[in-house]
């Protein structure tokens, strides 16, 4: 087990303060060393569980309906323009 805290933070879109980083690094190492006990178990012949009810492919008819929530949703959004969510510019003219 080895992890690089800065890389994980980048993947998770988190900015960590130096003191946070040290504490989290220590906590993660302790938790990962605890969960390492699972490696002792031989599970070569065991199927993984992703859903306890063994349901799969729950389908329904695709029907068009009004949800009626657009205005309420936009009213409480952090930043909007017209009927759109507004975010900082993501694409440069050049590219």
């Amino acid at each position, binding site marked *: 087990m080895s992890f690089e805290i800065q890389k994980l933070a980048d993947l*998770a879109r988190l900015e960590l303060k130096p003191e946070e980083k040290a504490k989290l690094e220590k906590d993660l190492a302790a938790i990962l060393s605890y969960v390492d006990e*699972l490696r002792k178990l031989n599970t070569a012949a065991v199927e993984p569980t992703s859903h306890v009810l063994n349901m799969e492919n729950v389908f329904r008819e695709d029907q068009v309906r009004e949800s009626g929530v657009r205005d309420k949703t936009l009213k409480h959004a*952090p930043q909007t323009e017209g009927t759109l969510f507004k975010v900082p510019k993501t694409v440069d003219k050049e590219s």
Partner: protein
Amino acid sequence: MAADYSKLSLKEAVAAAREAGPDAILQSVAERSARLNPKLNALLRFDAKRVSAGSGAGVLGGVPIAVKDNICVDGWETTCASKILQGHVPPYDATVIEKIKAAGGVIFGQANMDEFAFGSSSETSAWGPVRNPWDLERVPGGSSGGSAAAVAADMAFAALGSDTGGSIRQPAAFCGVVGLKPTYGRISRYGLIAFGSSFDQIGPITKTVEDSALLMNVLAGHDPKDSTSAPQAVPDYTRALVGNVKGLKVGVPEDFFAAGLDPEIEKSVRTSIKLLENAGAQIVPVALPHAKYSVAVYYIVAVAEASSNLGRFDGVRFGRRVQGADLIEMYKKTRSDGFGAEAKRRILLGTFVLSAGYYDAYYLQGQKVRTLIRQDFSTAFEKADLILSPTTPTPPFKIGEKLTDPLAMYLSDIFTIPANLAGVPALSVPCGFTASGLPIGVQLMGRPFEESVILRAAHTIEQTLNLRARKPMLEGAAV
């Protein structure tokens, strides 16, 4: 002075609302909440003026119910006790909220909790810790600690919680109330802000077993808006409360009584076993040999799901945004400022176990051991109709005691996590008190969709022990 109805059970309050009118019932809990919430911090938001007591019609006829702050209420700020969702006002009701309203219930307070339900003590809330009504220096459990404390302190007749690894049952045990986590899929999760999607279940926290059954009748059932909800027919749960356990096979896993279990809890739980035996139940030994791996499996699989579910909180569509020079910086600043320490810990851990090169060793292995734990339950349920264990290894701990040691906090859920891994229903019912007056709970786990069986046994324990008259000392005297 107006009559005080706050001590009534949900069922009694429905009857009282018919007599005295629903307004009088609502005013009783509103007045009591205003008085006690500054001590307990159990409710994040409550205001009798913003709700109508309604007509008093329906099975919940005008009676106020508190909901955990991770369940969406149309038009009300809903935050998961996290700064990142400050100002988040859902544009719709969760299905459980619709159902309560349709049954005549009144959504009253929104209950404090661990941030995003990450915790076992309700200390990680961005709005401060909840306090245990039985001892204000101790935690109420978590993550549904506000819901359990509100019900224990008679600030609500019942409350909704959610349970991913014990978050209904552990606080119910710590606060001396009844908490039921139904079978995975039994209650719709539409409108529950997701934590661990293969585990999360909504369930009732109540003063009595009968109230739990009453609320289950309202809440359970298939919902086309939740594709993981189960299609099985819903029984009348109140019919399970027959007042006897004759012939019921009660499985006892001796491993759960091993080292680390508080001796007062062991004594109290063994008294419940004896009580059921005296009432005609048959006690059978069962083994759950892989249950000891539950906490490890949970802190791989549940954090993986959590890190993925929390990806949606990025400051774009709801909640708070911290501006940045570009989109990525805006995401990072919003998330770093908005999430608390435990949320960051779980996001990073989940990101790690899902990352390239580690997926097989951690996440996949976790899912496989989960299968072994499910198989243990299947085998045990061939011999037993239900499995009985302590709900928690210790009584409520002191505020701050485990906050800096995540692993110690995680291990406080060691008896409750197995039921989530297997997806089976489980409840905690009060079974006694420690010498210092702290509540103790006993856990009953059932076969999938056999909530009725565990309610039936819990009802016998409750009726025999008759502990409900004992109330926390909240104002110098038992009030």
